[in-house]
């Protein structure tokens, strides 16, 4: 009986030792997830009156209305801040002014001996003194004879139309000065003919006089330009433009393509210019200083 009691005590002791050993093997909590109490929290707490630090991946830019836009460059997500930003930075109103002008480039060039071109008038709407849609109407003609007088190229008076847009880089500066890039699409419908042509064939010892019949053409072209405009007196301004142009379409012609295109210039030329005298009528008298002070207030 005593031996049976000793065996039972021994078995109970073995179970007790085994249970204690298992409790030591299984951890109560994952030590990797346990943050020391001294470590900085992941999300920094912003104390009252302290400016939050923006992550380096978030950049600040502005939209067309001048509002601040925060862009996360990693995810590409944009955040439009409509609360903290007070006012758009554009100084001038949406419809700031309208300008009308006369392009006198060809008229001046004709005084210097150019045998083509007449001139044009244009009207421009200033939006925030920033973007300026523009339309232009003009007339062109040519009566050209080369130095060797081997032919006379004639193109009667014909209209041209242009439509486009200027981008003013000084949109928040005074409107007295403009530095801008512009795009234009122009189109013209006109007739042309070549007279008094002398064709010499040296081998056959023949000299022939001929004329190329009148032909009609409708040509469209594209212009990219850089311009400056300066107000010289009250609302009168002078403007200069350097234009790079390319013919887009003109059709096919049995007796040869036109050489002069109203509003475009001569075929084969890459550049043209413009010199304008213009008058600006502001829709709203806006003082830049007062506007900025209003924004600051």
């Amino acid at each position: 009986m005593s031996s049976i009691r000793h065996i039972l005590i021994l078995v109970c002791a073995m179970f007790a030792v085994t249970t204690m050993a298992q409790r030591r093997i299984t951890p109560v909590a994952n030590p990797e997830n346990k943050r020391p109490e001294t470590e900085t929290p992941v999300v920094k707490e912003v104390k009252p009156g302290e400016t939050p630090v923006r992550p380096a991946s978030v950049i600040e830019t502005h939209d067309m209305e001048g509002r601040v836009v925060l862009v996360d460059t990693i995810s590409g997500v944009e955040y439009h801040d409509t609360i903290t930003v007070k006012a758009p930075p554009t100084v001038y109103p949406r419809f700031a002014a309208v300008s009308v002008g006369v392009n006198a480039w060809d008229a001046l060039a004709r005084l210097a001996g150019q045998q083509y071109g007449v001139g044009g008038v244009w009207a421009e709407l200033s939006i925030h003194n920033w973007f300026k849609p523009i339309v232009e109407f003009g007339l062109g003609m040519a009566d050209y004879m080369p130095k060797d007088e081997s032919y006379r190229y004639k193109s009667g008076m014909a209209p041209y139309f242009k439509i486009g847009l200027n981008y003013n880089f000084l949109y928040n500066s005074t409107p007295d000065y403009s530095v801008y890039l512009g795009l234009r699409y122009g189109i013209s419908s006109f007739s042309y003919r070549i007279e008094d042509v002398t064709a010499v064939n040296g081998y056959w010892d023949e000299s022939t006089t001929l004329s190329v019949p009148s032909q009609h053409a409708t040509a469209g072209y594209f212009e990219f330009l850089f311009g400056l405009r300066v107000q010289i007196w009250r609302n009168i301004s002078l403007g200069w433009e350097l234009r790079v142009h390319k013919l887009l379409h003109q059709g096919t012609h049995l007796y040869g393509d036109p050489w002069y295109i109203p509003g475009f210039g001569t075929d084969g030329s890459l550049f043209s210019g413009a010199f304008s005298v213009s008058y600006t009528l502001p829709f709203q008298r806006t003082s830049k200083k007062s506007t900025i002070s209003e924004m600051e207030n």
Partner: protein
Amino acid sequence: MAGFYSYTTLSPISVNKISLGGVDAPDDSLIINNASASEVYLPFRAEHDETQFYIHYHSRGIDDSAFNDTLTFRYNRLPYFASEECGAMYKYEVKEFSSTYHLIDSIALLDVNITNTDRETIRIFFRTYTEPPEEDTDDSENTDDSVDSANRNML
């Protein structure tokens, strides 16, 4: 501009020892005078609706005028403005063309509109043959008569 071609290989060739001129040209002036050529500018007459050219071969055995070839072009003259530099001229719309076929095999027009630009619009195919490889390299006279460096000779 007319280019010379072999009718067997259809590839460009240089024809040796030919004279080419216009029929009824003033002072019998020549465009090519006893020289080799691979192409030639053929000036059409601006005061007529037809122009003829002849080719005389100077190579041995075919240098008789009976072997001359004559090319005839009939056309409409269209006044044409080319550019500010070139001015205006006639553009010739070829209605029909013909040739004698002594050494010429055929003529092809790439474009019926002929202008004075440096663009090949006429192809003249000559009868040619390929010389067999020569064993005797001292025969210098044969070399003189060769049409081009590729050993293609006119028949």
